[in-house]
């Protein structure tokens, strides 16, 4: 099998997303989050990751999706970025999937403009489509609000 890549997958509402596994540091259960007043809305707050302070990004807000229902607690997907680890809050964690390069396709032109910078494209899995997230952009605070 030529050129396969492994993705760590997760769900936001009913949508499936994937991040290359090598960019994922760890996945941890819901944590105490200290909110940061005056911060951009996509920044949910700060968590204590074994003594390291990590920013938690609300991925639903980043992607302009509706809020997570209050009774659900989000999962932290801690990803490595150039600026150090950042936690992305997701609804549910999925499997690690292995995909081939040829199943990839750029996003359709009709994709919401706000999503363009964040979504590289999709991998056509057998049963469904997996969004490929741009990790660095997803961890930035000035995208998704339309201000870029």
């Amino acid at each position, binding site marked *: 099998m030529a050129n396969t890549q492994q993705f760590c997958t997760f769900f936001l509402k009913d949508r499936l997303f994937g991040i290359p596994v090598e960019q994922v540091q760890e996945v941890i259960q819901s944590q*105490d989050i*200290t*909110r*940061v*007043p*005056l*911060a*951009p809305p996509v*920044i949910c*707050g*700060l*968590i*204590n990751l074994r*003594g*390291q*302070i*990590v*920013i938690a990004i609300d991925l639903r807000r980043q992607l302009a999706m509706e809020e997570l229902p209050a009774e659900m607690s989000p999962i932290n997907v801690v990803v490595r970025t150039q*600026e*150090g680890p*950042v936690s992305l809050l997701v609804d549910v964690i999925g499997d690690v999937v292995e995909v081939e390069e040829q199943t990839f396709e750029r996003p359709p032109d009709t994709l919401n403009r706000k999503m363009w910078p964040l979504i590289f494209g999709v991998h056509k899995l057998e049963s469904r489509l997996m969004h490929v997230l741009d990790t660095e952009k997803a*961890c*930035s*605070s000035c995208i998704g609000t339309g201000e870029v």
Partner: protein
Amino acid sequence: MSDDAAIVKEFLIESYENLDRLDQDLVVLEKNPTDRNTLASIFRTIHTIKGTSGFLAFNQLEALTHAGESLLSRLRDGLLPLTPEITTALLAMVDAVREMLKSIEASGKEGERNDRDLISTLARLLEPPAVSPRSEVTAAKVEPAANRPELPVPNLGEILIKRGTANISEVNAAVEQQNAGDPRHVGEILVEKGAVKSQEIVEALNTQQHARGQSASDSTIRVDVGQLDRLMNRVGELVLLRNQIVQYTNSTEDSELLATSQRLNLLTTELQEGVMKTRMQPIGNIWSKFPRTVRDVALGCGKQVRIEMEGKETELDKTIIEAIKDPLTHLVRNAVDHGIEPPEARTQAGKNPQGLLFLRAFHEGGQVNIEVTDDGAGLDYEKLRNKAIQKALITADQAARMTEREITNLIFLPGFSTAEKVTNVSGRGVGMDVVKTNIEKIGGTVDLQSKPGQGSTVRMKIPLTLAIIPALIVTSAGDRYAIPQVSLLELVRLEGEQARKGIEMVSGAPVHRLRGKLLPLVYLKTELRDESHGPGSDNDDSQSVNIVVLRADDRQFGLVVDEINDTEEIVVKPLGKQLKSINMYAGATIMGDGKVALILDVLGLAQRASVVNEVRDHAVVETDDQQSHGVSGTARRNTVLLFQQGENGRIAIDLSLVARLEEFPRDAVEIAADQEVVQYRGQIMPLIHVSDVLESTRRKRDVDAGESLQVVVYTQNGRSVGLVVDRILDIVEESFTQQPQSGREGVLGTAVIQRRVTEVLDVPGLIAAASKSRSLAMASS
């Protein structure tokens, strides 16, 4: 230790290190005789030792290294091929140098030596290779310096006997046993026999070590800074963990656990202090370069300057030392270049033609103060004013109304330099603003004071360390925040009746009377936009009010918080770049319960709440506005104090001119020299009724309603004048266009502020007008 001894010690440490490398280099060179880099490196090392030994008057050392250097320079220039013979001679020289260094370390002298043979060998080798009998080289090998002063080192047994911890027979028995073939040390044998406790042996060994006179290269090691940083990080984690454990155990009854956690607590604190200490360096390390800097700069601009230092041994964290190095160097250069006058000018002014630059460092309140003082001409306020106008940093109008303090602060503006001509040292306009930014970046403050004709002092307050700081923990809207203790002045708690009445309003701006002075209040909840109900809301009625009195720059303000918890040592952790733009936070920390708390940046908070309103900020905003909107000079964004005069008259004063707002009871007014005065902060302050100057018909005083006078205090040259106004309305920040108005004394012009026509007061003009009609104590200069 005297200065000389310190220099010698440093020379020794450096030379030992270099010699070790030299051994390796020479060996490498032998394998690869044409390697220029290695040759150059060896040459430099020997050259350095030669130079320093000449300077320190170690003549034999100098003569020897000189011979070696000559040989090396020929090798380096490729005039001689490297032969094993030469290598041997050079290694012999290295050994001889090492011998001498040891002798210097032990006795301070090179010792009686005979290196003539070695030197002549080195000299002979300068000549192109002839037939040189090998034996001569070996003969030149240095014999161990027999008359090198030997320090008598007592053996362990002697020490133990002397200390009375062991008797002679026991020691002798142990020594005999050792001589009989026991491989262990005497100490071990004695401990095993039960004659001496191991603790005593350790002490005796220490004594012995001391007597040996620890070699300088043995007693210090150089450690990679990255390693220390990581260690410091780990200790930071440990401190956090300690906090968690202490918090947890305080809620249990288990006395054993409690005692253990207390020991952990103590140990952690000691460890933390110890690690911090390893990172501490005396400020003298950077200062030691300054005499040279001063000499060069002074020579370059034809001045005579003497440098004096006090508090060289004051220690600071390494990262801070690094951070203040450049700003400090800049200040020193500046003081010599701009501050101190040329000798002729000094003589004319009746001063010593030789200027004095004084550096001083001392600890105060958990911070280090560093002062750079010169006895030069001081700041020329007129020149500063003109320069600022010329550079379009402020308008002529603003300049005329600025206080000296504000003018002083101008030099911290980007792009500001008063040097008439740009010299190669300073005056490029990238100076003081960079100094200020760099110092503020590490949580310090810079302040400049100047007396015309007497000189200037730049005073910096620098935190000792950046990593772990004491902080006050407060709660606002259910979240905890840490406030660095250095900004904290005091805590005020208002309860019951006081809580309702202790907070008053100056047209919407809440204030509290703290020992008779008005303290502006800032609600943390409001600033964090946590809640709509802030000052004056009904919800606060029943509760008490907690005020944290803080200092930002040199202003004070009260921060109202929900709860004041405790002080704690916190470990400062940086925030990600996504949050860097919010100037409200200095970082974050992890609390005892493992949760994250934000650290408030007091200066940022004050700026956000407009407590600190520096010219610096105005000027920046102003130029931005002008650039982006292309507005010509007249429309400006200004913060003004509005007050009402008469029935409908609205008057504005530039807020930067207002020192304070005060309220005096009418009966506090006294008369001195036909002038109304009040006693104010230890001074007698003349009062000017704005109505007297501005209104053609003088009002009768006693007709005025109210029992108290509203007074705007204006201070210049350390003297205050009180302007009595009818009613203070508001403080507004607005951009407005001022129409010049002639013919009315004390008024600069009119402007539309808050959609109403408002007169803008010319305070110096007003005072001048008032003093014209009566001989006022204070001149309007």
